């Protein structure tokens, strides 16, 4: 937005604007006090937490840690220990900066050659994969029979996070409950059956 307002163009201006935004948000007066202690995840099932929600509770899980391409670029997850709405905000802001660093590191080196996988047309079997989305790890399980997909199941992070809502909001003042839910960054498209 800042880049657009100033008329600046190009990735450099956008990156600069994003870094300024990331630096400015924590300086909003009283924001820490407003978010501190809201939606604390202490005592909830840790299996339900993924991505920034888990990392804000001190759990340094990230699928990208197992990816050589990321480790080569110097990737390390942003972790906080508060487990509340403030920690989730801090993790997300830290991840914006970390993502910009990754983009810059990846684009500064030689470009890798993309080689599309060639699979036999009559392939059969099942497999699973995991990818780190902005909301956390998403799992994909597919079954293929003679080259045709017969089953595909996506396990998105918002399903587990939605299950946290009762534990994070029960007994909270209505505004605090809304902040707690917002801090989970639920995707309605992921939660809907």
């Amino acid at each position, binding site marked *: 937005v800042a880049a657009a307002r100033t008329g600046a163009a190009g990735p450099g201006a956008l990156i600069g604007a994003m870094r300024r935004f990331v630096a400015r948000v924590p300086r*909003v*007066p*009283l924001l820490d006090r*407003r978010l501190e202690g809201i939606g604390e995840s202490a005592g909830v099932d840790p299996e339900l937490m993924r991505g920034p929600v888990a990392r804000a509770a001190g759990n340094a899980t990230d699928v990208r840690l197992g990816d050589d391409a990321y480790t080569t670029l110097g990737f390390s997850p942003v972790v906080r220990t508060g487990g509340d709405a403030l920690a989730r905000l801090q993790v997300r802001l830290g991840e914006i900066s970390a993502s910009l660093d990754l983009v810059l590191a990846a684009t500064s080196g030689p470009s890798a050659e993309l080689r599309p996988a060639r699979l036999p047309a009559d392939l059969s079997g099942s497999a699973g994969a995991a990818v780190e989305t902005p909301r956390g790890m998403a799992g994909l399980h597919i079954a293929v029979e003679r080259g045709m997909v017969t089953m595909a199941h996506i396990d998105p992070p918002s399903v587990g996070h939605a299950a946290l809502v009762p534990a994070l909001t029960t007994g909270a003042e*209505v*505004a*605090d409950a*809304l902040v707690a839910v917002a801090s989970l960054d639920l995707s309605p498209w992921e939660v809907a059956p």
Partner: protein
Amino acid sequence: MAVALVLALLAGAYAVAVLEGWATTGRFRPAAPLIAGLALFGRESLVPRRPDRLLFETAPVLLLIAALLAAAVLPLAPNLVAVDLATGALFVNAAWAYVMVALIMAGWGPDGAYAMVAGWRFLGQLVAYAMMIVMPISAVAMRAESLATTAIVQSQADFWNVAAQPIGFVLFWLAAMAVAFLPPFDLPTAPGTLAGGVAAEYTGARLAIFRLARLLLVVTLAAAVTVFYLGGWLGPWFPAWAWTGIKTLMVAAAMFGGGRFVPRIRVEHLLQWSWKLGIPLALLNIAWAGVTLWWVDR
């Protein structure tokens, strides 16, 4: 004179509405409040399914009356005040007490969840700000040796109270914002979380009255800051009434502008800060007023 004062009050409310629109949208649109007001009167005024009709209907009117009563004792100029009560400063405080009553009624009356939560929130807000209204007023009355608002202005001829009692000024300013439920103290309306709160169930002409009452309340609170701390009508070159008007509008603009950059405060934090920090500081302010008066009289 009464007509002139009412017109001045309405003009002030309109100017405050323009300032509020400017602060919230970032665009200066002088005609917007008029258009919005006319549009509200043109809309259907719905009544909720099972309201407490008496409370629902009277709440906006009571809020309007509370603002008008407070305005009646605040002077625009030495001889331009509706009622120059000997206990004017106390009367202002008593009039503002009805703001709480009106908002509780507006919360209870419609029989709606959001409105009711908002009404009770304001009760908590009153518990937080009430002492920070009364105690700074006590200190300015000490300096004026009178509760008459005109005498309080005249007592600042040499030195405005904002400089003589800076702690009281800050406390009163914040408390005034809380009385008018301006951001970040907009707990009873809370756009985004309570969908308008106490005003959520009002539409059409009823909502227009509610909004007009709130604007008048902001005017009276800004005028009170002017009278109690910024020397009221005192100032060179311009007529006395103009100085009061200018200062009042500047205070209102600062109130609207300041709240934009801070997130809405939590009820428990407001109570915590008010009772653990605000009241001790208000006591310190009274002690400071006493010491400075003793020093001057010595």
